[in-house]
């Protein structure tokens, strides 16, 4: 008779594809077992020793997939090359973002902050269960065993992790697995780990939604009203009839659009160009940019609708008493996000009349709800397959899931037998709305004879991001859209008698958060004004800021620290001949970032950005090289748009259409970026967005040190040439 040893039994069970799955419920409870389908696994361990991280955050380039795999690998005790990743299915009960309540989604630079404890806990629980299974098999104490590099060892025994997958999956999950002390970290904090998606994004094998070819899929493009609020009257597709691959066109009355279907992308684009549409513009937006701007300026002249910080009286009376008063008015244009991958997604027919969405869904739950409504399908009949995203910068999460709903309605207008892939062109991307809002600020600051700030009167007119969206109930308080004023009313500078007033400006297009949300303009204004005030007070911009941050609270300490570090690394005050420097510091998404921009040349003859020195305090840096990359990218994104981008309207129609007139930052525009990370044991905070806010004001301050004070963007249309 043959007796299977326990080890042998485990090995034969392995053939059945057994796994150990471990997850952590939103309430903190650990769940584990052999059935990943019935829980929310954050990891799966197969009997061959391969670990799979189930990543609940979108990978839009910010490194979330690398971060979450690092957290699991650290606690479980495997190397980075032993772990792979896949994206979580749509299930907000299991994969919600703890920072976004019950929503599953990625935004607000929260991926690591939200996952830091959860994903480590899953890794630690798996580690404890594997050790317990091995200890029991070997008849030794679990305390004598440990896992490193994917191997369980101790008490004279050694075995690969995979050998104990089956046994571990039958144990109870530990209630509170012990997480490593940061002093024991072997992976977290290391700069030499490479991105998990780096190789695939270098050899062409990475699959974005744009790259999926489902069997029998057809391609769709959509024609929308060129003006916000334009209504579809009629269309004539006869011009497209001769185009090879053209299938047909259907009205999508619910969204006042026409869907065009073809056998390939090129035919769909060509057919669209050949279709004539009649729009009813009687209720459409017909204003032009200059009118929008003058309306916003008029709002600044009037009494603000909302007193964000109490009434204006205190600031006004102090400014009236002041020896010196400085005042500046700022204007920020609409901006497109223009992620590199034009928006697209696929709706595939699923089982029982359901659908499968293939999409780089970022606001997963919002998209799921939108599709359910648009298609009249119950939630459970919709599945979402999340793919890599070719950039986003905020664009992929809209309140009404604009492009996913377009695809769903385009699919619904067919016989629903073939997958429909909706593809946007770059022209769609630049012209279809969802812009960073236009915003105007006016700031008046009074100083005494010694240069001390007496009062600060700050008025903002902004197109509200949140009003009129599904987020209105959560975000709007007493009528105030916090995203219009964040970074001003909550400034960490010790500014006495601060008044912030807000008026909502009419929306002439759809608007949307754009990398760093309200901070895109508030940091520009605050950090420009601090320099204006420092100059009026005859003070050095660095010293003046440090003095206004001497209150001793934790935010001020951390802001001062990054400021000093950036200044030291940039040799603040010692710019080379022919160069000037500007600095800015700002807190956003829990992180503190200071930047010094050094430029050569003059506004008249052309400026060159020679160097950007950045210091960031984002708490504990899980992947320091990813943090650096995000600062580099955030700086480039901020500077490129401040230098030369705007969306303008003529009679309600967008003037720009593609990169030639929405010129991206190019390789020669910034000569060097130098990023320094403040060592920190604080909990990790955001990195995707916080690099952006200080960049443009630091550039403006560098230009103003030796030239004009730029108070309207983009700079190229307001008196500054770039080389």
């Amino acid at each position, binding site marked *: 008779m043959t007796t299977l040893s326990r080890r042998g039994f485990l090995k034969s069970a392995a053939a059945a594809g057994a796994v150990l799955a471990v997850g952590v419920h939103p309430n903190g409870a650990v769940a584990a077992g052999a059935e990943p389908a019935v829980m929310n696994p954050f990891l799966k361990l197969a009997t061959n020793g391969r670990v799979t991280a189930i990543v609940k955050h979108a990978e839009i380039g910010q490194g979330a997939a690398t971060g979450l795999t690092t957290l699991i690998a650290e606690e479980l005790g495997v190397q980075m090359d032993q772990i792979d990743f896949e994206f979580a299915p749509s299930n907000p009960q299991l994969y919600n973002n703890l920072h976004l309540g019950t929503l599953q989604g990625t935004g607000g630079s929260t991926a690591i902050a939200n996952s830091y404890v959860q994903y480590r806990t899953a890794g630690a629980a798996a580690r404890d269960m594997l050790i317990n299974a091995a200890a029991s098999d070997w008849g030794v104490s679990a305390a004598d065993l440990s896992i490193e590099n994917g191997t369980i060892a101790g008490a004279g025994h050694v075995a690969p992790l995979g050998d104990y997958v089956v046994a571990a999956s039958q144990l109870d999950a530990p209630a509170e697995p012990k997480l490593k002390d940061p002093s024991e970290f072997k992976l977290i904090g290391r700069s030499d780990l490479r991105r998990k998606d780096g190789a695939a994004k270098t050899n062409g094998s990475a699959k974005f939604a744009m790259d999926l070819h489902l069997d029998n899929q057809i391609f769709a493009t959509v024609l929308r009203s060129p003006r916000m609020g334009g209504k579809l009257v009629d269309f004539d597709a006869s011009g497209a009839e001769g185009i090879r691959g053209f299938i047909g066109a259907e009205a999508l009355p619910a969204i006042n659009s026409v869907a065009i279907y073809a056998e390939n992308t*090129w035919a769909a684009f060509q057919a669209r160009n050949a279709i004539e549409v009649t729009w009813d513009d009687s209720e459409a937006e017909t204003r032009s940019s200059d009118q929008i701007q003058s309306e916003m300026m008029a709002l600044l002249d009037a009494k603000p609708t909302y007193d964000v910080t109490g009434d204006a009286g205190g600031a006004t009376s102090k400014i009236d008493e002041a020896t010196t008063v400085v005042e500046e008015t700022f204007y920020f244009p609409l901006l497109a996000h223009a992620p590199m991958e*034009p928006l697209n997604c696929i709706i595939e027919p699923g089982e029982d009349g359901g659908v499968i969405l293939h999409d780089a869904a970022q606001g997963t739950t919002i998209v799921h709800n939108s599709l359910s409504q648009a298609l009249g399908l119950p939630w459970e009949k919709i599945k979402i397959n999340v793919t890599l995203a070719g950039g*986003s910068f905020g664009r992929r999460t809209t309140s009404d899931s604009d492009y996913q709903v377009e695809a769903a309605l385009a699919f619904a207008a067919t016989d629903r037998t073939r997958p429909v892939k909706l593809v946007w062109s770059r022209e769609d991307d630049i012209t279809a709305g969802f812009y960073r809002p236009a915003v105007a600020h006016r700031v008046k600051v009074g100083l005494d004879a010694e240069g001390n700030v007496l009062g600060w009167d700050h008025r903002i007119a902004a197109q509200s991001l949140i009003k009129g969206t599904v987020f209105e109930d959560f975000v709007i308080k007493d009528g105030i859209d916090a995203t219009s004023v964040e970074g001003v009313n909550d400034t960490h500078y010790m500014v006495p008698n601060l008044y912030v007033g807000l008026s909502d400006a009419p929306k002439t297009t759809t608007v949307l958060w754009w990398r760093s949300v309200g901070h895109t303009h508030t940091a520009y204004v605050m950090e420009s004004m601090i320099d204006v005030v420092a100059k009026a007070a005859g003070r050095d911009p660095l010293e003046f800021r440090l003095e206004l941050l001497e209150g001793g609270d934790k935010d001020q300490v951390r802001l001062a620290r990054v400021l000093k570090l950036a200044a030291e690394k940039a040799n603040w005050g010692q710019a080379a001949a022919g160069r000037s420097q500007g600095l800015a510091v700002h807190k956003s998404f829990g992180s503190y970032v200071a930047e010094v921009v050094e430029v050569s040349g003059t506004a008249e003859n052309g400026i060159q950005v020679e160097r950007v020195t950045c210091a960031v305090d984002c708490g504990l840096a899980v992947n320091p090289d990813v943090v650096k990359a995000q600062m*580099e990218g955030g700086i480039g994104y901020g500077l490129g748009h401040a230098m030369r981008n705007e969306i303008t309207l003529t009679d309600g129609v967008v003037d720009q259409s593609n990169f030639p007139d929405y010129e991206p930052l190019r390789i020669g525009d910034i000569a060097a970026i130098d990023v320094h990370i403040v060592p920190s044991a604080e909990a990790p905070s955001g990195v995707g967005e916080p690099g952006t806010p200080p960049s443009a004001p630091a550039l403006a301050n560098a230009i103003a040190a030796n030239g004009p004070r730029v108070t309207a963007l983009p700079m190229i249309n307001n008196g500054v040439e770039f080389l």
Partner: protein
Amino acid sequence: MAYSLKINGATQEVEAEAGTPLLWVIRDELKMTGTKFGCGVASCGACTVHLNGEPVRSCQTFIEDVEDAEVSTIEAIAEDKVGAAVQQAWVELDVAQCGYCQSGQIMSAVGLLSENAKPTIEEINDYMQGNACRCATYQRIRAAVQRASEILEA
């Protein structure tokens, strides 16, 4: 009509109308998706492929103009010594963020290093000017081109 396309060393027969951009033949007909659509007007470089070893924008290169040429794409660039070095450097320095433009960046970088083994920073900036990266990975692209040059020199 039918065209015969020499791509990555193989000959492929494709059906397409004259005037169809090579980009869409590669992506939709041959289903080789490493070459990306970014703008359609040769303004971003995401669609860069090599035509007889020279980088071109495939969105503005038409099927009827490439019948006698050798087309190579990101999928085969590792077979080229320069291509392998560039890819190695890209991974070493973790250039990619979202990664969508990087096939085009790499195809351009291979073009540069094939004609200039040791480019200066100015030469890199000039040559790579037409390849946009919305994640702004430019600093690492410059460093990776220089690193690839070192790898090739070794």
